[in-house]
């Protein structure tokens, strides 16, 4: 997995709560057997019109947010299905981090496995960052994972929580399966203890 230490990027605000994984990557794109090729279908049904042209109403199609790599969204982002295709699509589109007041559990786990950082901040902070991203052309944020901090252009820092293990995995791009396999003896002992 690609490591995540620090990131500076443009910000796009998606002003919706409860964005579900069916919106992030609709089911018609889940039939691929590869891990790649999902970015162009991110938010497909919102992003494109019936005729396939970009929907000018959808924020990702606004030219001023064209190079965004940080997504700000409403509460409970990523609810619904367990499809890891959702973080794949976000990552392959170019997102490195998602800021929201809260995330659905499975989605958040899936993000960590793919080098995307889901950052939960208080609702009022999200609202104000989202407003600034709309008001200020070329608005950028800096994310410092080591310091667990989101830094605004004016220097204001917002700290966020992350589990030590998840942080370590992201900072070092750790292979979790390899990590677990170093305890192979414990697994075997567990299996011998029970009837499994």
């Amino acid at each position, binding site marked *: 997995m690609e490591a995540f230490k620090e990131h500076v990027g443009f910000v796009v605000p998606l002003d919706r709560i409860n964005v579900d994984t069916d919106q992030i990557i609709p089911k018609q794109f889940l039939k691929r*057997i590869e*891990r790649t090729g999902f970015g162009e279908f991110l938010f497909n049904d919102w992003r494109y019109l019936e005729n396939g042209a970009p929907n000018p109403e959808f924020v990702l199609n606004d030219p001023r947010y064209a190079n965004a790599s940080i997504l700000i969204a409403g509460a409970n982002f990523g609810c619904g299905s367990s499809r890891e295709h959702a973080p794949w699509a976000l990552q392959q589109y170019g997102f490195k981090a998602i800021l929201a007041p809260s995330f*659905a559990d499975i989605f958040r*786990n899936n993000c960590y*496995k793919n080098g995307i950082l889901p950052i939960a901040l208080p609702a009022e902070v999200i609202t104000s960052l989202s407003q600034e991203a709309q008001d200020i052309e070329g608005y950028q944020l800096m994310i410092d994972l080591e310091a667990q901090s989101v830094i605004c252009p004016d220097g204001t820092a917002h700290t966020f929580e992350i589990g030590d293990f998840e942080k370590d995995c992201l900072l070092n791009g750790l292979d979790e*399966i390899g990590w677990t396999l170093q305890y192979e003896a414990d697994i075997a002992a567990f299996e011998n203890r029970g009837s499994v």
Partner: protein
Amino acid sequence: MYEKIWEAHLVRASADEVPILYIDTHLVHEVTSPQAFEGLRLNNRKVRRPDLTFATMDHNVPTMDRALPITDLIAAKQMETLAENCAEFDIPLYDIDSPEQGIVHVIGPELGITQPGTTIVCGDSHTSTHGALGALAFGIGTSEIEHVLATQCLLQQKSETFEIRIDGTLPYGVTAKDIILAIIGHIGIDGGNGAVVEYTGSAIRALSIEERMTVCNMSIEAGARAGMIAPDDSTYEYIAGKRFAPKDENFDAAVENWKQLPTDDGATYDRTLQLNAADIAPQVTWGTNPGMVTDVTGRVPDPSDMATVDEKTATEHALEYMDLQPGTPITDIPVDRVFIGSCTNSRISDLRAAAEVAKGRKVAESVSAMVVPGSQAVKRQAEAEGLDKVFREAGFEWREAGCSMCLGMNPDTLSPGQRCASTSNRNFEGRQGKGGRTHLVSPQMAAATAVTGHFVDIRKFQ
């Protein structure tokens, strides 16, 4: 109960590390697994316990005549890939031609694979279904599937515990589906985030095992990691004699162990909620997530009545997408399609309940309705009871088993603008087909809606 199962499955729990949890049963399907198997190959890893892994094909499979070729070549490739992966890694597979094929969350319990006190995972969020038998069961992503294939373990943080207690007697016409929709309406679609829910109380005890599956199935729609119900005599009776269930004296010994699982008297939960079964009415969703739900006697809400700006905006979006006007009585809403199926409501008791309503009646001319059994075994049982005839004579289509129009990955989809009464679990935008509008209901309500062409209060249905 969650804590007992959790403790019993800890392979390693050191204070400064993430706990390693042992997984007893890993269920696999065609859509979320190919990249996991590819990951194993790339890293030259094996499947640690193919004997604890079971695969089936459900999400993509067509529900028309199985003798016909599969016209969706990409879907066919995904199914072929699962077959190749199962052959390569020696995993038992119930493929599209198998008499055991079906929705993974229907066949697990049906075959006795799902057992109390076990940990069960699957790359599908509705894995919470299996908690109905007292298992700790939850959905995982593809990276975690690869992790379980390689190690038979998962790295997991412990969840909070959440007791949802429903006491009292369910009124006539009110079902397990209405219980869970009412709960989600109450706590919201993120009300269970970070928690494992245990459903308790006399109304839950009174449910059959299949009804309990409907409740646990939609735990994820409240954001919960898992949902579970303590095993009891109904559970043991259900499991007895199933193909993978323990036999004879092993079964008796297993039951003795299972009896130790229920939460101890006096134990406390991190969160609690109590509802009275008598207060629950048949539920119908009006919006674009399962929390946007009301009683069948209710009306489409007015965005200006919402408590927060976010909710007001979300309601406006939902009503625009659903093409509904605030204040419209739910029973005035007409539908074009009816879908009876999905891992929520496609078991034999669901089909019996819907058939009872459909019997001797006709699907309204303006409606096209279909019934998709959850598994080939459910289909055979229904046909043995003549339910297929009841449905066909009433004008419902009778299909082969699969996930079908719950998520519309196969050819069963809504057209843009079509409105559907569905017994499935998600009414997200585009879930059943781009531009399609989904209303979630119980099987009885779906059948009655098919007959009348609009939503009806099943309690007054003649």
